[in-house]
């Protein structure tokens, strides 16, 4: 039981229950506005009947069509603790994939901390596979070491041969990804 709708600026004042999670980054205002200005359709929020925000997904479309790299990207996906285990993340991912299908993307990709097993497993269940490892993609604060990311992908119907998801065996550095 969820209302799915476009994320608006006013939601920024209400998303604390989602964003006070340690793995959910609260970005500066420009970051959110950039997504709202450029890819408003990719920024979707789920709202409970009581008005609480349950979770949101934020994404974009990018890459070159000619090189068959045009794709949907998941920038952020987060669900508040009390609304987990409902399949909400899967629903939001499904929506992002559908939008990417409509835009003629070849695949959808995302980055996830290698330590975030819960998320990695969820994405695997949703049909994503590890395309490559990005070394020290997440810079850590408070003296802990930087963390690696998995770049995970799922092919869309336009990539019928699923060429886009053939894994790259060697890890890459953040500066080597586009």
């Amino acid at each position, binding site marked *: 039981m969820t*209302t799915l709708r476009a994320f608006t600026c006013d939601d920024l004042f209400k998303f*604390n229950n989602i964003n006070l*999670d340690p793995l959910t980054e*609260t970005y*500066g*205002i420009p970051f959110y506005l*950039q997504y709202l*200005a450029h890819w*408003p359709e990719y920024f979707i929020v789920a709202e409970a009947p009581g008005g609480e925000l349950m979770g949101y997904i934020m994404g974009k479309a990018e890459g070159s069509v000619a090189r068959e790299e045009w794709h949907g990207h998941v920038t952020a996906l987060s669900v508040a603790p009390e609304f987990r285990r409902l399949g909400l993340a899967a629903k939001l991912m499904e929506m992002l994939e559908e939008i990417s299908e409509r835009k003629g993307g070849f695949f959808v990709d995302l980055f996830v901390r290698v330590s975030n097993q*819960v998320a990695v497993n969820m994405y695997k269940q949703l049909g994503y596979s590890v395309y490559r490892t990005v070394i020290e993609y997440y810079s850590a604060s408070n003296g802990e070491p930087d963390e690696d990311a998995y770049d995970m992908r799922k092919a869309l119907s336009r990539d019928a041969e699923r060429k886009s998801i053939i894994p790259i065996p060697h890890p890459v550095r953040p500066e080597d990804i586009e």
Partner: protein
Amino acid sequence: MAARGHVQDPNDRRLRPIYDYLDNGNNKMAIQQADKLLKKHKDLHCAKVLKAIGLQRTGKQDEAFSLAQEVATLEPTDDNSLQALTILYREMHRPELVTKLYEAAVKKVPLSEEYHSHLFMAYARVGEYKKMQQAGMALYKIVPKNPYYFWSVMSLVMQAISAQDEKLAQTMFLPLAERMVEKMVKEEKIEAEAEVQLYFMILERLGKCVEALDMVRGPLGEKLTSELRSRENKCMMMYQRLQLWPECNALSYKLLLKNPDDWQFYLSYFDSLFHLMDKSWSQPEEGEHCVEGPVQTTVAEAVKFVVDRMEEQDLKESRPLRGPYLACLELIHRLRQRGCPDEKDLGDPLELMVQFFGKFGDKPCCITDLNIYLHLLPPEQRSQFKNRLGELVPLGEAGEDGFGFPGDTKALQRHLCVCQLSRALGLQHALDTEGKLRLITELKAHYHHGLQFGKSCLKTELQFSDMYCLMAAHVYIDLWTETGDENMLWQCLGVLEEGLSFSPSNAQFKLLLLLLFCRLGAFQPVVDLYSSLDAKHVQHDTIGYLLTRYAGSLGQFAAASQSCNFSLRFFHSNQKDTSEYIIQAYKYGAFEKIPEFIAFRTRLNQSLHFAQVRTERMLLDLYTEADVTSSLEESVKAMGVCPEEDDIPWDNMRDNRDLTVLVSWDPKDRELTEEHRRLSLEEESVWLKVRSLTLRLLASLALLGHAPSPRNSDKTNENGISAKSSTLQTLLSQLDQTLETAAQITEKQTQYPFLGPPSSRLASALSSGSCHCQVSALQLSLTLRELETTGLDDSSELQTQICNTFKSLVVQLQEMLSRCKGEVLEMKDSRLKTQPSLLETLVFFVETVCVVLWVASYSANVLRPLKSSLQKKKKKKKDINTAMPVVLCGFQEWTGSLQGIVTQALDHVKGQEASLTALKLAALTLEEGHSQTQEECGFTRAAMDKVQSSYLGSLQELGDLLRKRADSLIRLKI
């Protein structure tokens, strides 16, 4: 910033090193390099601008500006100079100058698409909608690209939105925008989805819903593809506005068949159904019901629809959706509201809720879902309901303590949900003290038991049983607030600290600990707790109040200042940040986002919290610095406070605080209401008004002190002076009025839910006596001003009046100080007792001392010349027998008394520090066994230590400030 364009251009090659230096933050080298280049190439304007950027970034704003203007007056048309100037003006926060720049450029190069488009964006940055409209059309004429045309159209819409006169919007701007789009439609030139979106926006704003509907359903609507369900959403919106209930109903029905979990469509389905029933709408005899398909018009149909949806879920193999089951409860709720007897066809709410629990009781959101419909249960069914749910929770056999425990996390979640529901039903609140203590024991036992399921949890994950711990804390708080037994509070802190040790990322533990420490008057532990929440950016506006409400009021001035700075930094970047993305929205054609971004910017600018931190930050600076490191006048000038100026949007204040950030399962009658929100905003606004008037009065006092003596001044000066004292007079009477309102508000003694907004400082400020004492002191400065004009002769009445105020101020300060007496922390009958209000009162006292001393210093400045001219006269007349004027004697006596009070206050602070240090908390015996384990006692002790050390910290800061203030007393000799 990189030089762009032609690689061959030798100037680019010459400028390159300067760009590089600037990019690397090496501003000094950039300036040097620019100077070098300018020696050889005097006319390389861009080098000048780049030098100006370097100067600007090293704090030499004035130099930078005049250098930039040298180039700007030449009206440059080279790309490099224009871009560099744009960057510079942006960094100077002078975006309006960019418009001038490009206005000149397009005049010289009238066919440049690039410069015209820069000009449009420059206007967009400053919101010059009319000029944007023209610039857009000018662009379109040079290069007939659709986006340019629609930029112009959008600028018309913005003129409509920003027009003060709604009529002008409806009869001029919007119709013109509509005609512009229609022209393109007729010529079949519509290309992009954004253009259709904009057309829809215009029609909607014009209230032309029928036309909008036709457009969305027609061929143009086919372009609406990016957003999911874009056409359906727009149609639904129009159906609702046009009250086309058959269409609304049919569309909702259709969408629910597709996704039976989408809540918004249940609401529109029910709404439309009841509207249709009220209008006794009947199906047309022939043909289709409506364009959207079949319409449902009877309760029976709705009941069947909902029941079918539930059955569909029951039969499903995959995870069932909650929507249909909750829709059933929603329908019962609505039928009951209408007094419709058919609700029984859906079943008994109790049974339905039990069934819901059976299906979804192991989901953490079960409580949030059912909470909305608990009111469907009559009070006498509440216990029964709880027992029925209990039957559905598989627990192991009860042990010695009488508690049975769940065997896995699903059972745990079910059990937890029953606890949450019984709290929401008021069953926990109904328990007596004994019962509540037993409940706490049970919750803690479940908490500890449940930790075994989360042994492999990462630091970033929550423990499965965390919410038991939080609920135990809530029950402790119930007991504390009901009985006043502070031990409950200490144990509560203990249990939360323990919880945090197992679940270091639990934000709810941190938030509640933070709130409790604040209530205890201990701010030090709060700093770390808040920083571990990693609150950033917009969160400073929504939850920053938790920090700023208490830091200053508890005498932690350094921390207070820092907390204000966090928030201020965020607010100050807002203006610049949002303008940039308004421009982006034009570029990407996200037209509907433009008014949204502007409203967002306004919401931040009008934030209550923003106004509060702005004001508090300046007051803090004055209290801690003025007359210590620099004079009051210098401080005021450095801050740029202008007494005449009020920059707070009193009538449009936005309360952006997130007042429900702390989780609560309290029953409805104890929850935060809209009325609470309104009262809290009212109270905070009045307190803000008191503070901002105080600030402006202090600024006014500082400038008063600077004015030359009126006797030596000419007319104009005199006018200036009387203007100054009349400002002070006006502000004082405003403050008086505000204090009256304040008194009325505090009389109401509004109590907010414990987890809701903290009360403002208003009540404690009034009861401390600080406001009235400060008013008397500031009033005194006006009387002294009068004496300055009158002189010492023939002013005996005035002098007596002044002396009386001197005395009265001393009495008031004495009274305030006596209200600070008592032990902020003490051990009584082997229990720890706190009186945090003493600390708050002491802070008010110290602030008031500051104000009185500033007035005293002003008094000295007034009296000193009067005294010296009197002595000159005496010398001339050789008259040694004349008595000293009353006011001079009075002043000396006054400064003596003030000295006395400050000394007393310092002794008091020292005494408090000594008794705090002497307090050996380790000697305190905490009752182990009965209610607290040894570990918990350890955590409680740690919390006690934190409170003790925080009190000491506050006292030290207050003592330091008083000592610094005492030094300024020496300068009061006349």
